[in-house]
């Protein structure tokens, strides 16, 4: 059974139709990569899953339960975390406050916190700093840390490597690989090199429609398909 099932999702933003019927299944475990060019509708897909836009018609099924039309907070409580493209860091809050806000009870599970320190040592270093003073890479780490401070079944991550230095991208890939051992990740990415090193399954979205689904291995092998679907972003 798939963890997340999206069927015929159509989303309008204002008067513009952005998604024209997006369907794909995210199986449990590993990293699922959603590829596509700028403006293809990747971010809108994630936001629609999160309930930040309301798809109509269309349905989102998570662990066999229909979550379409639920309030964003309700969807989050079902076990989905969201790391938006702009990272959504609260700049006026300290690193600690950013993290404690993401816990359900307002106190830390020490074991999980320790794991976060190991994944991202910078978090511990800058613990009492206000988040706006962090570098772009540190902010991204904080955003990911915030998504895993509570046990979640699925993390939606939107273009985490955008604008980051290569060394940080490598560290990020390492962290994602480790996180994916226990949590499913739905990754939206334009950096194909980064995506193919992580992804197990994948889908390509174009002009608000899914135009290809399959495994990453097959996609990597088929150069012609890559050329056709990603020519502009590769």
């Amino acid at each position: 059974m798939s963890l997340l099932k999206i069927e015929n999702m159509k989303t309008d933003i204002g008067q513009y139709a952005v998604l024209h019927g997006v369907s794909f299944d995210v199986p449990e475990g590993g990293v699922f990569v959603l590829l596509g060019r700028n403006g293809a509708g990747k971010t809108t897909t994630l936001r629609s899953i999160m309930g930040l836009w309301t798809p109509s018609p269309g349905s989102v099924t998570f662990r066999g339960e229909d979550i379409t039309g639920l309030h964003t907070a309700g969807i989050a409580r079902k076990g989905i975390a969201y790391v938006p493209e702009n990272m959504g860091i609260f700049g006026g809050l300290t690193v600690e406050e950013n993290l404690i806000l993401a816990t359900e009870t307002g106190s830390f599970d020490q074991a999980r916190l320790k794991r976060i320190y190991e994944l991202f040592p910078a978090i511990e270093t800058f613990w009492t700093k206000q988040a706006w003073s962090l570098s772009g890479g540190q902010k991204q780490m904080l955003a990911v840390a915030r998504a895993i401070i509570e046990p979640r079944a699925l993390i939606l991550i939107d273009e985490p490597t955008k604008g980051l230095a290569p060394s940080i991208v490598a560290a990020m890939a390492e962290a994602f690989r480790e996180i994916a051992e226990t949590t499913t990740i739905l990754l939206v990415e334009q950096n194909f090199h980064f995506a193919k090193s992580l992804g197990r399954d994948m889908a390509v979205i174009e002009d608000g429609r899914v135009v290809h689904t399959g495994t990453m291995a097959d996609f990597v092998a088929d150069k012609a398909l890559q050329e056709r679907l990603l020519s502009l972003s590769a």
Partner: protein
Amino acid sequence: MEQLSQTLERFGGVYLLPFALAVVAFIMIGAPSSWVTLTVAGLAMGMMVFLMASGLSLVFGLMDVLNFGHSAFVSFGAFVAASVLAALGGWLGSDSVILNALALILALLSAVAFGVVAGWFFESVIIKPVYKDHLRQILITMGALIVSEQVILAIWGGTPITVHRPQFLEGAFIFGDVSIEVYRVFAFVLGLAVFIGLHVLLNRTRIGLLIRAGVENREMVESLGFRIDRLFIGVFVLGSALAALGGAMWAGYVTLITPALGAEMMIVVFIVVIIGGLGSIQGTLLGAIIVGLTANYIGYLAPKLSLASNMLLMMAILMWRPNGLRPAVK
């Protein structure tokens, strides 16, 4: 220049403005005793305006909702408190400080209680349907303001109403040739207490953490699993209760109130939140103190210019900092 601004920033940055204002006024007024009286009056007025403005600022910061009807809470607070004080006239006149204080507390509590109920009603009936539509929001809250003013006129009539103060808040403290009205000190202390309370609420509690985060990025707080809209009702109700409290205090300060009070205060409140920067309590306090001091100093130095001076002050600050002195981080 760069160095100067850094030094200024270290000593408090924009928070130095009220002090600078006070120093300039001291030189221009020349008479220390008048200056002290005016400064105390300015601080007291600033604190009362802070009560009225804080809710408006927070509500805007959290939900991008600007309630033009906010001043209705101020007027209602004033009139409710005045009515309660009038009804408890016997207690007010008595020599017992306890009865005095009890009447005052009851009056303030009634205003606050009214603010809570009216705020809840306002949020759920008037504002909720137009959360994301600024144009209709401005129009609807304006409409609600018109209706509220008419209701006040219908209930209390158009003639000015005298507000009775409790005996123990009458009179003044005299130090040499300086006299300081007791009520002003009381207003200042109460305002300061509310500010400290709000500060603790925002910085030391989980709710406060959620509010601060929500002001910055509402969607992200929801994506973390919290219902901002429920939080918002709470903040809205708190804001209207504080506005009503501010109105009640103001009624006791001016001792003669008319239904135009709300509209008059609304202008001041708007200037305060624009100067201070929407969405932050510190900014609102700063704006309120600056406006309070300016109004009193100018009122003494050049009475005809007092309202225009606040307007000019606002324009000047907007040119310098288009988002106000201390806006919330966005």
